[in-house]
């Protein structure tokens, strides 16, 4: 443990702020490119929320409303949450688990890379993909679903959802530190799909069975989707502050778990 802390605190090095910024920028850029070219990632993470939105929001129910909010608008919030969650979980956990388990992270750790840059790159990439998904939903909603909102509300919705990438990126880091390179993707699916359903991302929350509604109260995607719905005027009873608190608490817990994994790794035997 003492060795691990030493490594953590020791890691500062005299670089100009500009040099450090360049490293962070490149790390993020290449992480983004890496995922963008990974068909597995883009196919599942980008296309699913968009396809679902087109099907259920534009093709099937576009003229209907959920509790006074037009379906195309409502579903931007919920499929937006779904997309952000997928992009963030897969963007962090799968890569981290494989880098860790198959030695690539060791090569990076042996170099003078600032360790934080590696994690920051994953989070920034997840947020970027999240923004891409949300913007794609906006574009589809506006052009094909007749979604109309003041620009400020679009901006707030985008901001809320992209900020909502943080709890799931943190969760991904925690999963990535404890799952193996091959078990990480199925583990994420096991978390991601049931959570999405129970949080009302597929079937609007009000139509869910009572038991499921109870469970949803402890699930982060529920709170993020309620925040997003709140922006478009379709939120339910809890206050926005409550939702933010839950998400922040959840983020802290996940980062704590990830940190335990990080320290454990410092003294672990590899291959």
């Amino acid at each position, binding site marked *: 443990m003492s060795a691990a802390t030493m*490594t953590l605190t020791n890691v500062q090095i005299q670089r100009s702020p500009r040099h450090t910024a360049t*490293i962070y920028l490149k790390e993020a850029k290449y992480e983004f490119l890496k995922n963008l070219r990974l068909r597995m990632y883009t196919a599942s993470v980008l296309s699913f929320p968009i396809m679902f939105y087109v099907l259920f929001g534009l093709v099937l129910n576009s003229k209907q409303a959920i509790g006074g909010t037009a379906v195309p608008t409502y579903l931007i919030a919920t499929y937006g949450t779904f997309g952000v969650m997928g992009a963030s979980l897969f963007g962090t956990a799968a890569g981290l688990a494989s880098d860790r388990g198959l030695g*690539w992270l060791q090569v990076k750790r042996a170099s003078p890379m600032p360790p934080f840059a590696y994690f920051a790159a994953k989070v920034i990439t997840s947020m970027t993909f999240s923004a891409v998904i949300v913007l794609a939903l906006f574009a589809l909603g506006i052009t094909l679903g007749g979604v109309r909102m003041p620009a400020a509300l679009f901006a707030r919705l985008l901001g809320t959802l992209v900020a909502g990438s943080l709890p799931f990126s943190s969760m991904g880091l925690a999963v990535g530190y404890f799952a193996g390179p091959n078990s990480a993707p199925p583990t994420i699916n096991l978390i991601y799909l049931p959570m999405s359903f129970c949080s009302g991302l597929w079937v609007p929350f009000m139509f869910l069975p009572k038991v499921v509604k109870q469970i949803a109260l402890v699930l982060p995607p529920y709170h993020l989707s309620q925040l997003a719905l709140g922006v478009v005027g379709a939120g339910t009873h809890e206050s926005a502050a409550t939702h933010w608190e839950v998400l922040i608490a959840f983020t802290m817990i996940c980062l704590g778990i990830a940190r335990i994994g990080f320290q454990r790794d410092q003294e672990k035997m590899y*291959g």
Partner: protein
Amino acid sequence: MPATLDQTCNHGTLASEAIVASLQGVNKNYGNICALRDVDFRVRAGEVVALLGPNGAGKTTAVKLLLGLLQPTSGKARVFGGDPTNPENRMRTGAMLQVGRVPETLRVREHIDLFSSYYQSPMRAQDILATAGLENLGERKFGDLSGGQRQRVLFALAICGDPDLLFLDEPTAGLDVEARRMLWDQIRHIVSRGKTVLLTTHYLQEADALADRIAVINQGEIIAEGTPATIKAQTAGKRIRCITRLSLSTLRGIRGVIEAKEDREAMELHTGEAEPVLRELLARDATLSGLEISSAGLEEAFLALTQESSKSATHVTRSSFSEEMQ
């Protein structure tokens, strides 16, 4: 081993200045498994040292300790006189490790660009590509490269910061002869620029071809150290090959024969001294033909050394025990 310690003490600061990497009385345990046992090992500036041993001997553990990726259970790992985890030291070292998977969707040039950005004064991308023999592969994605090309990319990432000290952990493992020779050329090229290199390998030929000094490691202990010539001299054996009617058991019975084996139509004997064995052979078999005598290669030297060390393991414990008793 104590002799080496005394030497450093006597030569004082001068000698210690020249040492760029060292393991000092290092033990490393993984749970109950002892990966390194009381290892004292030094790499001096400008030297190419090969850590030679079979799989599981502790080579990779030694490298990871010197890279600060592992902490010794006891003893000290030092690089440039300081802690290997010190970022200043990491600026001056490069490492080629055994990796299961490298991000495959990034291009060679992109990998190099990213790693170069970590260093204060990296080499120019063009020079890195040329040095690693990747001139025409910069735009290729890592996933589209052959095994040899992949190893050369990892080599490029190790040298991109223009480091003073280079760690190469089994650089040619799993490569075919041609790819191996190509990587050797690249390593020689970087060595000619005055770099200090520690390489691990289980190919004796590789250690012989590249290193100024070889440390043979087996079961976590360094069992021999010296120039390739010294290592060979330590077992100064001869190999006799001949076609003979004598049976394997008869041959083994001849005084001076360490080992005998059948090799296609001929017999191969490993001896300490060839002459007495030869006299005996010729006296016993008048039809003996196809006689060849050669120096035992590094291969045999290595085999003899490692076998000796495992045989004498119990022996050593007993003798050190009796020393304590006295």
